[in-house]
């Protein structure tokens, strides 16, 4: 693989990670700010959603409109998200506009105007997006599932709760930005076409001198919530979310876990699709995937089905999780491995997904894995290693959330 990893650390601790890609004209970048939902104080967990809008409403010498016009003028496609650990803002754009874009993002991060009238609008939009979630049960069930599966505050929904959002003030939110936009803990990632020296010098001059707002936050983790939660909704389907614990990304058995999940739900020949959809016609949408935070991880499964089939769907899914440890074939392992490797390579062609991958690797593992390393580790798994892992780490303690007109029985 011809990728080239670049790394540089500023004196204030901010880490720069880059990956140069051949044959592309685009560049992607992201600032991972330690302002994720789990790091915010009780009662403020939707603040990230407000902040990621508010900081774009004017920064440096530009008002909201001028800033937006400047970003649009670069043809930049904004990307932003709030996870458990980070608030990330970034973009994908033509590489020739990268320098100008970074100047604007420095303004947004360090010199956002934070005007009161703009705060009210950003907060209203955040509140509205919580309401809108009620009309998207498929997304809502997965957010609720994470909330129930991870012990608080790890699984908090970054969208927050309406009452909490309503109670947020300008002062409180501005203080969160001051405290949490901590550059010593910030990871800046970029991928695609760039000049590494140039990017480093620019980031250095933009961020090196800004004030550091303090150390890392220690989170104290509470108890996991209930085993089964049902939310009544008079819709057409019962939306089922199910999650069970597995090894975290830094674990020795991580690749065995990933291959196991692929046997369960990697492709259309995987077990869940075959048993639930192909043989029984219970669902259209059915799938499971690995979901990892830094210190905790699980396998997350979604299925949507009409009320009369909900119980059977759940029972078949759980039976398939349990059946994995009874045996997997050579063929299944081979398909899982080639699927994981090929999706790795296909993703590596996109500057946006590479930039994202660098940051999550560095935060979770403290280093960036090369594509070759990942390929080798996937390659090293076998029927024996996967079965050994499954038998020592049986899937149990399922957390289940349903949204729909009918509850299911959870044993």
């Amino acid at each position, binding site marked *: 693989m011809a990728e080239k990893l670049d790394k540089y650390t500023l004196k204030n601790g901010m880490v720069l990670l880059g990956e140069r890609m*051949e*044959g592309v*004209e*685009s560049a992607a970048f992201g600032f991972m700010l330690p302002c994720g939902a789990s790091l915010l104080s009780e009662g403020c967990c939707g603040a990230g959603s407000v902040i990621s809008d508010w900081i774009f409403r004017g920064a440096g010498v530009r008002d909201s409109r001028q800033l*937006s*016009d400047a970003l*649009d*003028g*670069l*043809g*930049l*496609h904004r990307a932003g998200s709030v996870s458990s650990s980070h608030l990330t803002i970034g973009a*994908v754009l*033509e590489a020739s506009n990268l320098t100008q874009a970074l100047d604007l993002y420095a303004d947004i991060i360090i010199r956002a105007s934070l005007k009161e009238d703009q705060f*009210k*609008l*950003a907060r*209203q*939009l955040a509140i*509205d997006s919580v*309401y*809108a979630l*009620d*009309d*998207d*049960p*498929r997304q809502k069930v997965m957010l609720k599932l994470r909330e129930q599966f991870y012990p608080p505050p790890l699984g908090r929904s970054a969208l927050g709760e309406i009452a909490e959002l309503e109670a947020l003030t300008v002062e409180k939110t501005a203080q969160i930005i001051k405290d949490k936009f901590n550059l010593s803990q910030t990871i800046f990632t970029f991928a695609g076409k760039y000049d590494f020296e140039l990017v480093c010098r620019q980031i250095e001059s933009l961020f090196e001198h800004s004030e550091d707002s303090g150390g890392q936050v220690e989170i104290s983790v509470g108890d996991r919530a209930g085993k089964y939660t049902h939310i009544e909704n*008079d819709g*057409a*389907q019962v*939306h089922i979310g199910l999650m069970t614990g597995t090894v975290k990304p830094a674990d020795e058995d991580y690749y065995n876990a990933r291959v196991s999940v692929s046997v369960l739900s990697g*492709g*259309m*020949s*995987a077990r869940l*699709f075959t048993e639930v*959809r*192909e043989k029984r*016609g*219970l*669902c*259209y*949408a059915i799938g499971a995937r690995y979901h990892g935070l830094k210190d905790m991880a699980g396998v997350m499964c979604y299925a*949507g*089905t*009409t009320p009369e*089939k909900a119980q059977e769907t759940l029972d078949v899914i759980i039976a398939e999780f349990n059946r994995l440890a009874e045996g997997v074939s050579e063929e299944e392992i081979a*398909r899982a491995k*080639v*699927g994981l*490797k*090929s*999706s790795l*390579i*296909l993703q*590596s*062609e*996109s*500057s*946006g997904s590479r930039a994202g991958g660098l940051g999550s690797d560095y935060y979770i593992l403290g280093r960036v894995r090369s594509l070759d390393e990942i390929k080798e580790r996937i390659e090293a798994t076998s029927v024996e290693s996967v079965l050994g892992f499954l038998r020592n780490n049986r899937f149990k303690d399922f957390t289940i959330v349903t949204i729909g007109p009918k509850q299911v029985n959870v044993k």
Partner: protein
Amino acid sequence: MEFKHKQLSNGLVLVGEVNKSAKSAAVGFFVKTGSRDETEQINGVSHYLEHMLFKGTEKLSALEVNEAFDRTGAQFNAFTSEENTVFYAALLPEYLMEVTELWIELMRPALRDEDFNIEKDVIKEEIAMYKDLPSFDVMDRCRRLHFAGHPCGNSVLGTEESVGGLTAEQMREYFAGRYAPNNMALACTGNFDWEQLCSIVEESCGKWQQRPARRELEGCGGSKKKERIEKPNLAREHICLMSSGVSAQDPRRFAASILGMIIGDDVGSRFFWGLVDKALAEAASMQFAALDGTGIFCSYIRCSRERVSEVLDIVSGIFRGLAEKGITEDELRKAKNKILSALVIKNELPMGRLVDLGFNWIYNEEYRTIEEDVNAIKAVSVDDVHSLIEQFNPGEFTQFSIGPAQNSS
């Protein structure tokens, strides 16, 4: 990048764009058939048939098909629209020929009764799933209202009734008429060997029988009707606006895309500043969609029930402002920049390129380089956009809304 083209004697077209420096390749069959080619009795058959192609052939069972794909690690799937059914795979170059052979085989499916029956349940689940997504449901209903009897208003999924009543025999008949080699194209992009691809296709597809496959292209001005339905379990009002636009064959489609972006891009558009920035609507966007012989501008707005009339007044004001004063040079410049960079980013992936290559062939029987598209966008002037606004006033729209009961919040 090198363009390649070949047509077999039965009419099947192969188009390719070879990029030897790509790490991956993509391949797909583009079949010129969709819900607009259906009658009311068989509404939903194109999409149902798309599912059935994965159910195997005389030689392969459904599970064997899925296993064969998964052995290659390909990211494969299919989608059906009002006028096309596309089967595609993004993959590593070493598996391209194997996957192409598999797609070729699947294009002549067994359509067995027992598979048909079980898949009917899956389709009904898909219909139910989209009923729970009002943002999708409202578009589907608005399209039907806008096209008012024109076949482009047909639902892709069909209804529980139309799908429920469909027989395997009706599907076989539809298949025979629409999946003729002269009504489809095979496209391939990225790192692959053109000669090898041609020899596989010639050998396997050469015996497919040509059949007449027609599509009536009638224009449609749109009904401009307004309707609303209530669903008590909803929290927000979901509004879809639809008006007519130019077709996929019309050179003005580039100007139409720019107009759609100026009015309704997610950020920085007239909708954004008028509605989203002011927190009156949580979502407001417009897109231009070019169709065969016709086209639409389609907007989606989501807001609280109490804001609906204020939001719609602002929307009317935006359209009025466009009709009276037009757009500015600055708006045009920003919209072009956004479209151009999206084009560059998308085309860096063989899979992104495949879609453009296939559709350019299906609609216009032409190959367009990325540079040609870039130049066509750069060439659009303020006057071009103004004459579009004049001819297709987006302020005269069909409107469909789905929301909670009138007296609830």
